[in-house]
């Protein structure tokens, strides 16, 4: 039933006539992400607010043109996302699309945008493919990727003695990519991978999988999934006494939004990696408070990353003296990224924005009275170590 309704909507989107494109006196940014599914707190309307904040902080206009932000829900479906992107480019004069939670969606929209010669800055998706074999001269990847998460969480836990791993992996591209990257880091550091079990996306009950992970005897159970799946897995691991039994849980993609949803009672002691934490210094705390006033939540790395992406885009338009794609892309590659999210960030030739990531640990209940103050920062990992060397990314645009 839902399918039928959705296809009707998609058809309507397809049938929309393509209007002639022309120069306009607007700079228009589209925030395309999941606003109703399992990742709606991970990015969702909060990312849209972050984009609005960036525009306001920049003064609302660039080169004398008004800046506008539009947003839509892609429901985690690549076909729906492509239709919306096409319509935005063809009839609504959108200049750049950002956020793009879910790897399959980000890859589809980045490819379409390359064909249409438009800029995308992905902040919500994880796959390294975006800046690897499928990289685009107009495609950029901000905030994080599976490689950075693997280096952060995987590397740190092996160093602390967690040298045997068992993976609980979401059965789609993102899960595989995360499992593969993390497994490689574990082996490189001298650890071993004992096995993995694949679970379907949006599984509600993890007990069977957790029992298999428990039986494996691995010291670390790596959760190569995201959103509600990870939350349910952690909660149920508590029931089966996995942590009491001496095994450690590693949530490979877990952000402040999910920690808040799960509660520190269940999440305490969890090790995770993010590229932003609001309570890290004064500047980030000030940004966090402003964000909180607008949205009722503190920002995670996706939200702060989206803020940085929009701001960087506007700076690049200003520097290029035009919103023409080729010129803006060149400036995005050239300019350093300096804002609340990144210090001394730089964009590699494959489109990867390289800045520091943080290894974090969730505090115990009662350890802090400040609302949303959930993390202890264990280590800062320099961007050059966290992200894949562009020369090895497999991106054809990198020449050396």
């Amino acid at each position, binding site marked *: 039933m839902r399918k039928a309704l959705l296809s009707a909507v998609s058809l309507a989107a397809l049938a929309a006539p393509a209007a002639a494109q022309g120069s306009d006196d607007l700079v228009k940014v589209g925030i395309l992400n999941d606003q109703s599914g399992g990742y709606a*707190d991970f990015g969702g309307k909060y990312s849209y607010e972050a984009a609005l904040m960036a525009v306001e902080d920049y003064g609302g206009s660039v080169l004398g043109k008004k800046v506008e932000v539009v947003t839509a829900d892609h429901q985690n479906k690549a076909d729906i996302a492509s239709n919306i992107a096409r319509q935005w480019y063809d009839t609504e004069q959108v200049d750049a699309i950002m956020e793009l939670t879910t790897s399959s969606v980000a890859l589809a929209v980045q490819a379409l945008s390359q064909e249409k010669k438009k800029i995308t800055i992905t902040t919500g998706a994880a796959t390294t493919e975006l800046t690897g074999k499928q990289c685009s001269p107009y495609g950029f990847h901000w905030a994080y990727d599976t490689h950075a998460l693997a280096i952060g969480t995987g590397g740190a836990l092996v160093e602390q003695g967690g040298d045997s791993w068992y993976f609980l992996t979401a*059965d789609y591209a993102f899960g595989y990519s995360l499992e593969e990257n993390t497994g490689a880091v574990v082996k490189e550091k001298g650890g071993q991978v004992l096995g993995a079990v694949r679970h379907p996306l949006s599984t509600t009950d993890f007990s*069977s999988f957790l*029992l298999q992970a428990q*039986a494996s005897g691995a010291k670390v159970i790596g959760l190569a999934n995201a*959103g509600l799946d990870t939350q349910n897995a952690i909660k149920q691991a508590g029931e089966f006494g996995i942590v009491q039994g001496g095994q450690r849980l590693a949530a490979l993609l877990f952000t402040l939004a999910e920690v808040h*949803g799960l509660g520190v*009672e269940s999440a305490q002691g969890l090790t995770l990696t993010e590229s932003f934490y609001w309570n890290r210094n004064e500047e980030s705390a000030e940004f966090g408070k402003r964000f909180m006033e607008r949205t009722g939540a503190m920002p995670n790395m996706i939200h702060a990353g989206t803020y940085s992406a929009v701001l960087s885009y506007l700076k690049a338009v200003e520097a290029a003296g035009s919103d023409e794609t080729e010129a803006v892309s060149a400036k995005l590659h050239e300019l350093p990224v300096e804002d609340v999210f990144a210090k001394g960030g730089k964009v590699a030739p494959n489109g990867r924005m390289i800045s520091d990531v943080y290894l974090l640990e969730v505090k115990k209940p009662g350890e802090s009275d400040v609302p949303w103050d959930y993390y202890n920062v264990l280590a800062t990992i320099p961007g050059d170590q966290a992200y894949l060397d562009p020369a090895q990314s497999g991106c054809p645009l990198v020449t050396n």
Partner: protein
Amino acid sequence: MMTIFGIPTAALFGQLLVGLINGSFYALLSLGLAVIFGLLRVINFAHGAQYMAGAFAALLLLTQTGIGYWPALILAPLIVGLGGALIERTMLSRLYKLDPLYGLLFTFGLALTLEGTFRWFFGTSGQPYAPPAALTGAVNLGFMFLPVYRGWVVVASLAVCLGVWLLIEKTKLGAYLRAATENPVLVQSFGVNVPLLLTFTYGLGAALAGFAGVLAAPVYQVSPLMGSNLIIVVFAVVVVGGMGSILGAIVTGYLLGIAEGLTKVFYPEASNIVIFVIMAIVLILRPAGLFGKDA
């Protein structure tokens, strides 16, 4: 260590037990659907949303008024049941004379509205709900670690399933209900208030979903999406059991839970489709379902 098909027996028993626990949720939810379909001929698409509403009712009772798990186990289903009765009386009852498709579309719309409303207020990552102190901890059974709360889920759902079955098959009220579906005009002429019976039935079905929601709250994250992730499986259970068959819904719920648990041992990737494969096979061989009366 003993093995069967290369799987250690300990793991196998563990998975069978886990299947039984999941089966409890399937049974409880499909029971409510079967009651509503069997007596009202309405395909209640809002069932998942009512299950979610039950979990949220328990959560809000706790956070807003400090009412704990045990009272919530009674109160939350009552709230959801009354909400269901109100909806039946004011809206759904107007659709009985029309094609069943209208009821389906109405309840589908209701589900979307409910989910959207909760999403607006609570976001999608949901909220935690702690199990009651008496049911925390776990027992080591030798072959697996059984959380006490999961054991309670099996006991509670078996008791409620049995209770509802007895209510409908063995009591006078149940006899009225069944008679009212067979021939409403005749039953009305005996002085029985048929519309009231139908309202009660829909309320009962919704309350069952609400009860399952409260049971699920400590196990799963309380999230607006928790119902839509489950409802499709539950529909498959009802189809396999035979639309409207109450005993069929209960037995099939447990059987499919176990089938799913076993699949997770042998080929985990298929665990979310195995129920639909079974559904397809049953539909080919016995179109009315395993316990359907029209076969």
